[in-house]
């Protein structure tokens, strides 16, 4: 989106020792938990077949746990594996989970929305230096040029309320907040320009629904957008249905989305979904002083009945 060419630094943000020590700490704890039978599985990452990749896994034995890693390629939000939608994972029993800051925010949301009980999950939090962005050149280390946008302005690097923290955070330089800049650019537009901006993006959506499948909060067993009696959202990728889908998505995630940006990462059409999410989050912060996912909250501003709710807008 940045029109002017910008030079990105390629100096590594964290040295190799950091990644190894985090991986070590995860493995050690995972092996211990499995050996003691404290959990039935550990949701974490193992190295992918190609270098510079990683993939989610549910390690069920100490041997499998010895394979666990943490690297800049550990992009997935693992909280997804604990939602009810993934029944086969939950059916195994109490689980441990490796969680970055953004995964933790999702976990807090799931706890608040009755999808998870804290006592049913053991959380191995990560002091997280960041992960690769969607189109990063993975032959490079994690650096200004390769780090995900969301990580540039992350506020939850140090995990809280976990059972264990893996690793210690290296000193990190302040990075240019590209997401905030983009949001500011959007807010400066006239409503017409903004509408044109989104219309163009939405029109490219192919309705693969990858964004929905990857989102830890899209845990409905039957998404309303798949209903056909009555049909609320047209299912074919045409402008009306696309717009409806994106509005439903934004509204259903307002006050819940923790900003993991997984939706944006998996979108094959490069639609800036997290920009919309951030805008909604900002509105909630301004209107209700509410931020999703900082702690498990029983009620959010949009899911609460209060006798003294402001009704002045009802004329």
């Amino acid at each position, binding site marked *: 989106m940045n029109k002017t060419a910008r030079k990105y630094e390629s100096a590594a943000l964290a040295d190799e020792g950091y990644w190894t020590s985090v991986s070590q700490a995860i493995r050690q704890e995972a092996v211990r938990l499995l050996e003691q039978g404290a959990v039935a599985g550990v949701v974490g990452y193992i190295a992918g077949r190609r270098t510079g990749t990683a993939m989610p896994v549910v390690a069920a034995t100490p041997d499998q746990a010895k394979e666990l890693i943490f690297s800049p390629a550990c992009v997935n939000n693992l909280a997804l594996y604990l939602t*009810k939608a993934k029944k086969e994972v939950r059916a195994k029993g109490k689980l441990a989970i490796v969680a970055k800051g953004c995964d933790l925010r999702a976990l807090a949301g799931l706890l608040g*929305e*009755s*999808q998870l009980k804290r006592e049913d999950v053991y959380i191995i939090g990560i002091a997280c230096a960041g992960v690769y962005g969607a189109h990063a050149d993975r032959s490079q280390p994690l650096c200004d040029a390769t780090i995900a946008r969301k990580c540039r302005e992350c506020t939850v690097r140090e995990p809280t309320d976990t059972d264990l923290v893996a690793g210690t955070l290296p000193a990190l330089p302040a990075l240019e907040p590209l997401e905030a800049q983009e949001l500011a650019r959007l807010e400066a537009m006239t409503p017409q320009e903004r509408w044109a901006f989104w219309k163009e993006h939405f029109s490219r959506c192919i309705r693969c629904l990858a964004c929905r499948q990857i989102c830890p909060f899209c*845990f*409905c*067993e*039957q*998404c*309303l957008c798949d*209903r056909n*009696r*009555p*049909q*609320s959202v047209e299912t074919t990728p045409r402008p009306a249905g696309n717009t409806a889908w994106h509005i439903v998505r934004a509204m*259903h995630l307002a006050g819940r989305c923790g900003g993991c940006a997984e939706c944006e990462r998996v979108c094959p059409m490069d639609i800036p979904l997290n920009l919309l999410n951030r805008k909604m989050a900002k509105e909630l912060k301004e209107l209700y002083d509410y931020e999703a996912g900082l702690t498990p909250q*029983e*009620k959010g501003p*949009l*899911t*609460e*009945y209060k*006798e003294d709710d402001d009704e002045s807008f009802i004329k």
Partner: protein
Amino acid sequence: MSRIGVFVCHCGENISRTVDVEKVAAEAGRLFGVAYTCDYKYMCSDPGQNLLKKAVAEHKLEGIVVAACSPRMHEKTFRNAAKAAGVNPFLCEMANIREHCSWVHEDRDEATAKAIDIVTMMVERVKRNKKLQPITVPVTKKALIIGGGIAGIQSALDIADSGHQVVLVEREPSIGGHMAQLSETFPTLDCSQCIMTPKMVDVVNHPNITLHTYAEIEAVEGYIGNFQVKVRKKARSVDMAKCTGCGVCMAKCPQKKIPNSFDKNLGFRPAIYVPFPQAVPNTPVIDRENCTWFKTGKCGVCQKVCGPGAVDYTQEDEIVVEQVGAVVVATGFQLYDIGPKPAGSAIEGYGEFGYGTIPDVIDGLTFERLASASGPTGGKIVRPSDGAEPKSVVFVQCVGSRAREKGISYCSKICCMYTAKHTMLYKHKVHDGQAYVFFMDARTPGKGYDEFWRRSIEEEEAVYIRGMVSRLYQKGDKVVVMGSDVHIGVQVEIEADLVVLATAVQPREGADTLAQKLGISYDKYHFYSEAHAKLRPVECATAGIYLAGACQGPKDIPDTVSQASAAAAKVMTLFARNELEREPIVAKVNERFCVGCLACRKVCPYGAVEEKEIRDRSGNLIKVVAYVNPGVCGGCGTCQATCPSKSVELDGYTDEQIMAMIEAL
């Protein structure tokens, strides 16, 4: 369902004046699934309803759309007619072409087109309506009365006499309300205490009445027939079971100089007190703010002197839970305060009358206490400043009332009459005194009322000056009243010994908070709103809650008592049944799709949503879903709007129905 009948009403000319009803009927006849249409002058009349019944039989109708007025007006009427004709009442819907169309439009063609759209939408909806069965809920035959003034007392006695249990909750240490403070009462001048106190005693002695004084409503849950009420009984510091009411404690309490608010601060009381000698119950309370023991931990005299050992400094507030089927709200009124107005008050106040700083400017209730035989002066009328007998008294009516610029536009209704009464009471006690009254109008409708008012002028020689008072100020030991006489168009100035302001009747402080607890509505002044100004004047829009007395609007005693008995009659009608039928417009959860996020539970204003576990045959938990208790659900639809997966829907208002209506446009 494909055999729908559409009945288009003219409503006299209310609809047909702007809407071409024949055309609406004809167009409706073309709709797929409509088997019969007609139009008629008054569908709600007996012949109109018969027309509907006959059409159902002749054309084998399975669904009905009545295009007429608002469902609030006649939905029940037509659903009953449908039922009588053998059609499930919930297959009958109203298309509102009056309030939503003919009344708000002028262009006949456009209004007709809109009426056709409204009918088309309702036809599509009715096609998707389901036969619903009414829900029955048991009735708890016990009534809660809030407020123990004459209104609450009358309702309580009437209901209790009919054999039902009553719980009466009064905020003050004694029941009685304002009537206990009055001297003699218009229009017959009988002594208020003499007619009031026997009723108060009846309440406390009645086997069917449970009395909680010095108590307030903490929370109310539930619905008609089944309310759960939490009552906070404030710590009295005196054990009601032990106290014999001998009064030794009050006599011995060293704190003697606490202004008695019952006497409008004209007299004093000790820290352990009953507000007035005839109080019911006759058990004192300790005013902890002024009690030496509570302030310093020393004293304890009352405990020492109390024979039965009833004084208990450790008593704490107690919460009592009562199950009741009906609620009568009778919290009465308060008088407009002539003192300085708190910042932010919508009501202006009277700086020109000195904001209550002139000692010999008092309000009507203070005058009642002066004139009362059981008052602080034993019924002798004196000035607060020096205790002298006032030889000239100026009464000013409409202070606060009918004063739009001061924030209140309504008439307080009782002031004309009680001011007339005050002039008489004054003349009866101070024979050589002169009463003047500044008034805007004399409003005296009521049996014997105008005669009473005339008497004050013709026999008791009160001088009535039509006009307003612009200023009051102290001059020596007199209060100068500057006003105008609009009849002869001159400025008037009177040097008075005493000025009595007939201040406006206002709802009690905190009336809005109580309303929110009860879920009833109130007007901009916080008077409680009745369901219909003419036809349902004692019911609230919230089923099972009734109104009595001045909490609904300014009222005198006869009106208050009539309304209190009417409210009691409504409660008895409710209690005549063992079960109530409720409209089955309640939410239902689709357990297959519900993901148990319980967002619905968080937003439900009625607390109707519970958690439900679904288990397989061997008892393994499959999932947790939401469950709506149909007895509690108020049918508001909030959950439906909130549910992300559209797994909860209101019967009769399903998404399918609503979408079909939108698509019909």
